């Protein structure tokens, strides 16, 4: 189990942790940049200054308590629904691929894709504003058409690692996915 540092597409530091549980099971976890204390205090002071300005104008203390309430609720909603702490990929050859996002409040949202549905794992390019960014995605098999792709599931959308990190993850996944092609069928 080793941890290597990389950079995200925006330049923030991220860390990749790779664990091999067995010959056909690997877990790759990307840790996103943490919540900065600077930005948190900047937003809070901006909201409270605006509320104090309103209070001075309107002489109504409800504004102040409303501002505190809004800040608290906003922080809880942000931590529980928006801020992703870690995104991980668990590849179990012959069972499937599991994608987990864990939020800052501890909530985890998981999706499991069975191995029969997985066609391939590839690195795609995307044009985002003025940049070209790379992202890793899982191609799902179309049940009717053996050559077709029914859906593209993008991975690591919140941490957006750069190409060097993606190549590591891609190589790990491909090693396990190749095993299912070379393994002989059961009698």
């Amino acid at each position, binding site marked *: 189990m080793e941890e290597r540092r990389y950079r995200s597409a925006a330049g923030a530091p991220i860390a990749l942790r790779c664990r091999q*549980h*067995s010959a056909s099971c690997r877990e790759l976890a990307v840790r996103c940049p943490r919540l900065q204390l600077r930005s948190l205090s900047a937003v809070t002071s901006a909201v409270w200054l605006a509320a104090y300005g309103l209070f001075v104008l309107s002489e109504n203390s409800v504004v102040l308590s409303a501002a505190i309430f809004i800040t608290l609720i906003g922080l809880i909603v942000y931590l529980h629904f928006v801020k992703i702490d870690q995104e991980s990929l668990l590849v179990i050859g012959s069972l499937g691929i*599991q994608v987990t996002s864990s939020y800052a409040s501890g909530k985890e949202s998981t999706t499991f894709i069975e191995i*029969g549905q997985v066609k391939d794992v590839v690195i795609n390019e995307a044009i985002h504003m003025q940049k070209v960014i790379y992202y890793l995605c899982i191609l799902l098999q179309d049940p009717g058409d053996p050559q077709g792709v029914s859906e593209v599931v993008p991975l690591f959308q919140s941490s957006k690692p750069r190409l060097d990190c993606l190549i590591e993850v891609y190589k790990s996944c491909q090693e396990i996915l190749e095993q299912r092609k070379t393994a002989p069928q059961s009698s």
Partner: protein
Amino acid sequence: MVLKVFFPSCCSVAESGILIGRWIPEQNSAVVLAVVHFPFIPVQVKQYLSEVQQVTKVSVAVLGSWSNSKQEKEESLSEFLEDLGTIFSHEPWIQISKEGDSKFWSCSTLQKRSSNPKEEEIILVYYDQRKVMLSHLHPPLDTATSADHRADDASKLSAIFDTVAKSKMLFMTDRYDDGPIKLTHWQSDGIEASIIVELMKQASVPACMLLAFLLSLISGVCRSRVLKFWPLSFLWSKLSTCEQLGHRLQHLQVISSGKKAQTQTQLMRKANIFVSLLIDVTLGILLMSWLYRKNRIGHLADTLIPMADHVAEELQDLLQWLMGAPAGLKMNRALDQVLGRFFLYHIHLWISYIHLMSPFIEMILWYVGLSACLGLTVALCILSDIIALLTFHIYCFYVYGARLYCLKIYGLSSLWRLFRGKKWNVLRQRVDSCSYDLDQLFIGTLLFTILLFLLPTTALYYLVFTLLRLLVVIVQGLIHLLVDLIDSLPLYSIILRLCRSYRLAAGVKFRVLEQRDGKPLRLLMQINPLSYGSVVQTYRLPTYSCYPRDSWTSLCKKLFLGELIYPWKHKGEKQD
């Protein structure tokens, strides 16, 4: 290929024995359902398995052996277990052994008929038997709609869920039963308050029959010929209260039907309808108790007449304003006066009728308020109908103004064509050129000019009354939205997702447990519950209205041309 063994977590502490379950060859996986303990007679075991197979339609077989020894492994025991493989011939024969309290078990397979004796990797997946048995796997919504689903394309997980769910009969044997075969599997520890549940089940059958009888009486009365005469049937179709009552009657019929629900969707629908009705009636009774306390009905009746008067006065002021020079625009005096006086007379009539009814208002409200006990939705529909009745004059004005404006616009467009020397060909549905006589042209041009210069006046009246009508329609629409929300929200499913989230499964998730080299990979399979959004989308109850009827562009077009708009459509109505 990798061999996957699904092992129930409740059997981890079982005594040594043999494993029974289902072998799925396409996926190279074995689903263990129970452990049969020593001593047993192989013939009896085979007989029992064939009985179970007949009832549950699941191909249960002996999969392998399980040894749970407190001391070190004994050579003789392992040989004995291998010999069992010859009695119950199963390919491959799985041997799982646990030493003492160690978490790491050793797992091996015996392949007798395979050509290459290669060691294949084994993955041990623990699953919670009770949760997997009770849960219902929901396929993703897009694949659920595709009809061509071949059996071997079916997902692996649904095969496992099906196996455990269908083997429910196997799990009914109690550990304290004194039979020839002793099993270990998930045991129900007894349900609290099961006596109450049993009593309710017994009582529900006659209650359902009584309810069904009453409902058949009521629907027979409703369908009788007396109520089908023209004025009454027109009235019933226009009042939203009757629609809502009919909808609820349908729901009651669904609940009180004697047949047991066959599929999961039917069961959930029945439960959702029942909970929705219960909440509705509870809220209605609460509302009723609030209304009838402190004589609130009396206060309401007292404020109703002055409010209607106030609305009428405001309308009169509005008409006086229109008859003058509204917003600085100069109207055609004669037409203005005619239209203004016409509408003022209507308002005068309306006020007289309201004052005629005023002594009876309180009594009518009192009795109508009693029907709130049928449910909050019925009370809201009655409110919407009262608003519609009280603003009936606005509706009439809107219809007059719209018809006048519509006539004017059609006249103008036809005369404009005459002005340019063209004509509308009804046969060919297109504009053709036409040569008119001089007197036709003369009269046509005169009429065109008259209509054109009278357009602003009519247009202004139309605009004002359309805006008022739209205001009333928006208020009624909001009330109907609320009624629809209460009608269609699947409360039982949401509460189930909150309290027993494993019953509604979107999929599974795996957690990797502690590993040790040389031992098989250990995974824990847990149920991934559906998100609340998908719960609501899957189990929504259908309602009788559909929005929106017109798209925004067609609505604007209708408004411009002066056609009458009916924004809310009910499913039973014919298209016009």
